[in-house]
């Protein structure tokens, strides 16, 4: 919200400079985001009077003027057709920066200096509205008010000797959405109480009740509704002071009546509305709920279809305003309006919010009403607006006001225990200190006992309902930074968080393998999310088609990242991500039917090592990934897992290999299908593994086993077998045949082709033998190896190759 420094001074006198005020308000919780000296841009511009205009001797379109700027008379060359002797004008002096250059296509500012124009000296510039950034007019100079004082600075003439603050008001504090509201907070700083101007009204002898009536049908949503009627006003532009005030607060002046309603809102926070009396049929107002589906045109010219329950201000026949949100076009103040009906009301915040939200309307009025206005401000604002309209637009104010307020809204009485206050804040404030803090906010102490006092909370403080709300106010006034900082050591035993340890372990292991951790956006297009075949979670209000569903797999994100890297020439890639994936499940889950899993995804492509002079780096293969997945599972402390090769439909990878841990599938690895790579613009072979984190959790307790006392013996054997016998089957066969001496089987060579019959291959293994009881001697080793070989020959039709 924008506030004017000068305006604030109307309600409370303070000497704080803008910088101090900003700092101190910020420390009270009114975050001053910025402030601006409004006149800054008109430094070096003054009001001058044109004394004399003569034709330029060397230029048809130029004139040479003598301009009185108070201290001296300047010679200025001017090109405007409308310049004339006697005019009051805005003069830019040498050194001043003209906000907009009308000869520059972008209107860039430029700085004035003494120049010779076609041989004639010019000591300044008479400016146009456009050049001063005050409006669009470029065709002639801006002519100021006849009464403008010669030599006065332009910023003061424009009412810009002021500072505008931009303050972020939190949604709990609607009472701060006005100058008077902020003045109350300044009162905490200065120790003075701010006050609103006293209203003096001259009423006619004609009673308002004779000419107008109000009926409130929806008393729940309209607890208070008040009007006054003013006849024979003259609609026109507002006086200077009013226009200046509105501009400083960031509002555009319109006409005197509308400007007054806005001024009063910015003064005391109460939104107002003015109707053209002549347009209110039956000279009455009825407040009631709209029929759903009724169409209504607001004063900004937009057509709306009213929702169920929208509260409307109606005349005898039709709707004339969406209550507390925006007035209707059919009854707004126009240039021909003579009689005005002024509305000041208090609306139920949640009703206003529902209607404004349903219609998608944001307005200053709705903004305040939905946060909560002050029901006690209704009559003051009404009278104040009437006073200012009489002042600025003349007219006859009918006697009395109509004020429908059937059920009085009282000040809230809120108890506060001194002990509780100190128990929350960690302070040792006395009861009288607390009372003093709250008094500064206009919150008075009522009844009380030793520890417990009752406080009367004014109706404008809608945020204070409970003891804790009062405690916050005490803390605010006492000063957050005056509360001592204490540290307490304590250990939480509930959340040792094994999941965290597992994720860290996985992350550290993969980083050790040379993987870069990536983080990709979890929202993606529905097309992408459907690639996995899972049913994706679809957003109701997405940012666009490309961002409309939650990811069902981490693979597409990494493929996209890989493609981006490839386009920068980085083709050797190892990436991983740990993150959540989502899908709609048929069974109910923790939240709705949404199944959420944390996964880790590995992505590999390109070379295994950087280039080196001594040895070649090689293209990564599926076996690199397969080995790394095995190492990762080892690092997680898992031992009962295996690869499964049966073909299941996996939409992203070809010939996927599944990882089964303790009987359940934990994920898969494989080569990404060519068409999937292509879809993301990645043009290399790529390998991925995606595993569910919860499946990687190992329950195994770390336990010591005695180290072997006797040496290992290694023997190599090579077999020729049918091509369709897998190495896994051979390994298993060897392990099952042993007498317990065989510790490990390592495949070290695989060969197909020349020297072998078609349909055959050769596999070579190292057998590692070891006894727990003794050092093995040759004949024991030979016997064991022979036993293994015989079994493999017999069971798998293998043939031992002589070595």
């Amino acid at each position, binding site marked *: 919200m924008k506030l004017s420094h000068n305006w604030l001074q109307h309600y409370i006198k303070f000497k704080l400079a803008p910088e101090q005020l900003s700092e101190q308000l*910020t*420390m009270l*919780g009114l*975050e001053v*985001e910025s402030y601006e000296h409004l006149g800054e841009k008109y430094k070096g511009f003054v009001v001058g009077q044109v004394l004399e205009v003569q034709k330029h001797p060397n230029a048809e379109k130029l004139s040479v003027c003598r301009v009185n700027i108070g201290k001296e008379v300047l010679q200025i060359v001017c090109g405007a057709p409308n310049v004339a002797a006697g005019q009051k004008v805005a003069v830019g002096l040498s050194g001043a920066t003209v906000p907009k250059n009308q000869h520059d296509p972008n209107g860039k500012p430029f700085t004035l200096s003494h120049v010779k124009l076609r041989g004639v000296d010019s000591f300044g510039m008479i400016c146009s509205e456009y050049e001063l950034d005050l409006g669009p007019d470029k065709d002639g100079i801006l002519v100021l008010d006849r009464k403008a004082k010669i030599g006065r600075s332009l910023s003061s003439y424009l009412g810009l000797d002021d500072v505008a603050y931009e303050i972020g008001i*939190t*949604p*709990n504090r609607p009472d701060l959405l006005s100058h008077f509201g902020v003045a109350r907070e300044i009162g905490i700083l200065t120790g003075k109480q701010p006050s609103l101007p006293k209203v003096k009204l001259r009423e006619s002898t004609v009673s308002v009740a004779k000419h107008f009536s109000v009926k409130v049908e929806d008393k729940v949503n309209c607890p208070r509704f008040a009007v006054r009627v003013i006849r024979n006003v003259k609609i026109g532009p507002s006086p200077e002071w009013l226009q200046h005030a509105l501009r400083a607060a960031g509002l555009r002046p319109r006409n005197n009546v509308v400007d007054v309603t806005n001024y009063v809102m910015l003064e005391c926070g109460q939104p107002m509305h003015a109707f053209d009396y002549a347009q209110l049929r039956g000279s009455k107002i009825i407040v009631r709920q709209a029929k759903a589906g009724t169409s209504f045109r607001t004063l900004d010219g937009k057509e709306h279809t009213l929702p169920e329950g929208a509260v409307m201000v109606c005349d005898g026949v039709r709707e004339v305003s969406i209550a507390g949100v925006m007035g209707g076009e059919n009854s707004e103040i126009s240039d021909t309006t003579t009689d005005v009906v002024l509305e000041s009301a208090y609306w139920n915040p*949640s009703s206003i*919010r529902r209607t404004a939200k349903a219609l998608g309307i944001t307005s200053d009025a709705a903004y305040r009403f*939905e946060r909560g206005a002050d029901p006690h401000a209704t009559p003051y604002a009404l009278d104040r607006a009437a006073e200012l309209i009489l002042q600025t637009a003349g007219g006859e104010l009918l006697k009395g006001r109509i004020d429908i307020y059937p059920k009085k809204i009282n000040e809230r009485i809120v108890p506060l225990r001194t002990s509780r206050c100190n128990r*929350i*804040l*960690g302070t040792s404030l006395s009861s009288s200190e607390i009372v003093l803090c709250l008094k500064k906010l206009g919150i008075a102490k009522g009844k009380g006992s030793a520890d417990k006092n009752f406080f009367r909370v004014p109706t404008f403080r809608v945020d204070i309902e409970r003891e804790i709300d009062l*405690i*916050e106010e005490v*803390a605010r006034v006492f000063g957050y930074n005056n*509360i*001592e*900082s204490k*540290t*307490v*050591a*304590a*250990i*939480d035993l*509930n*959340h040792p*968080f094994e999941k965290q340890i597992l994720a860290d372990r996985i992350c550290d292991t993969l980083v050790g*393998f040379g993987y*870069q*951790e*990536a*983080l990709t956006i*979890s*929202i993606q297009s529905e097309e992408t999310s459907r690639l996995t075949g899972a049913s994706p*979670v*679809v*957003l*109701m*209000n*997405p*940012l666009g088609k490309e*961002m409309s569903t*939650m990811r069902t797999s981490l693979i597409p994100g*990494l493929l996209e990242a890989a493609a981006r890297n490839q386009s920068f020439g*980085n083709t050797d890639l190892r*990436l991983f991500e740990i*993150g*959540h994936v*989502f899908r709609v499940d048929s069974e109910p889950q*923790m*939240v*709705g039917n*949404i199944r*959420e899993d944390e996964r880790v995804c590995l992505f590999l492509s390109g070379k295994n*090592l950087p280039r*080196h002079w*001594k*040895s070649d780096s090689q293209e990564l293969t599926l076996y690199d990934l397969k080995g790394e997945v095995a190492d990762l599972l080892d690092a997680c402390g898992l031992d009962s897992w295996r690869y499964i090769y049966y073909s299941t439909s996996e939409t992203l990878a070809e010939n996927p290999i599944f990882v089964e841990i303790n009987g359940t599938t934990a994920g898969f690895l494989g080569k990404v299908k060519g068409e999937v790579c292509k879809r993301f613009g990645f043009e290399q072979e790529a390998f991925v593994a995606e595993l569910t984190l919860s499946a990687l959790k190992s329950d195994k307790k770390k336990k010591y086993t005695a180290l072997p006392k006797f040496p290992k013996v290694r023997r190599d054997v090579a077999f020729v077998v049918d091509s369709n016998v897998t190495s896994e089957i051979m390994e298993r066969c060897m392990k099952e045949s042993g007498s317990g001496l065989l510790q490990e089987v390592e495949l070290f060579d695989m060969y197909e082709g020349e020297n072998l019959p078609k349909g055959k291959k050769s596999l070579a293994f190292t057998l590692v033998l070891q006894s727990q009881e003794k050092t093995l001697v040759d004949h024991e080793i030979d016997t064991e190896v022979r036993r293994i070989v015989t079994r493999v020959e017999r069971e798998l039709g293998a043939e031992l190759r002589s070595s």
Partner: protein
Amino acid sequence: MQTKIAQLRQQVEAEIGSVTTEDQLEAFRIKFLARKGLVASLFDDLKNVPAPEKPMAGKYLNELRQRTQMLFDEKAASLKSTPHVSAQLDPTLPGRRKFLGTKHPLMQTLDEIKSIFVGMGFGIADGPEIEDDWHNFSALNFPPDHPARDMQDTFFVDRNILLRTHTSPVQIRVMENNTPPIRTIMPGRVYRNEAVSARSLCNFYQVEGLAVDVGITFSELKGTLLSFARRFYGKDIKYRFRPSFFPFTEPSAEMDITCFICRGKGCRMCKQSGWLEILGCGMVDPNVFTSVGYDPEKYTGYAFGMGIERTAALLYGVDDIRLFYENDVRFLRQF
């Protein structure tokens, strides 16, 4: 005496020139610089020099010692950087490198934050990213139809299910499943329905903290967060707590520290204010305790939260947070 010094100086200059190996250099050191070396023995002779000559002789001798030491140091340095090239081995050929893996900068930042709080006795908890209205809003004292909900632009899955807008719903889950004392932090990914720009993204990371026990005060909140900020941003930082508003805490505060880029003078990073907002915090609102079935008269607590992208951006000087999600390895490898 002075002739002796000059002679020794010549000898030193001559012999250092012929040193080509470490062994020869060591021999040089023992001959001239050792405790019983030639230079030291001249110092012993100094006592025999007549008094008037003593100051001058002492000065020259000191110069000689310094010169000798310098020549020795220079030679030592040059011997170390000269490889022993032989026919069999050129040690200057490049070694075999690996592709280096790195943890994502956001996760590095998060790790640092986690380790500080874990060091203060906090545990770590997490929760789902897709939440229901209850955990994300209602239980956290956001009434329906309240403007406070506008503070967070929300992605909805249906009327009741949404992408969590903050990590605060994990507070509710932690309290629903545990009894006090609780001291835990809750890191995770959150979502806001905001157009992607250099300053905002539709998803980002937060870390939330919660402490609930008998006797926890605002004073303790300040102390804990101050300890964190001093460890994380430096022990000399200036700080301030200023009032703010969050529906689920009361009193609520924001913590600022002096901008470490401009040292409080005002710059683009701190929007000319000289202060950087680093986190939001406050005392757990009694309504939140009521919604999880805790007795607000018995327990008090505090909560805090901060954004990881913003923290990391400040820390590493990253001016466009989209870089964190582009996964350009040229960017990732910088951390």
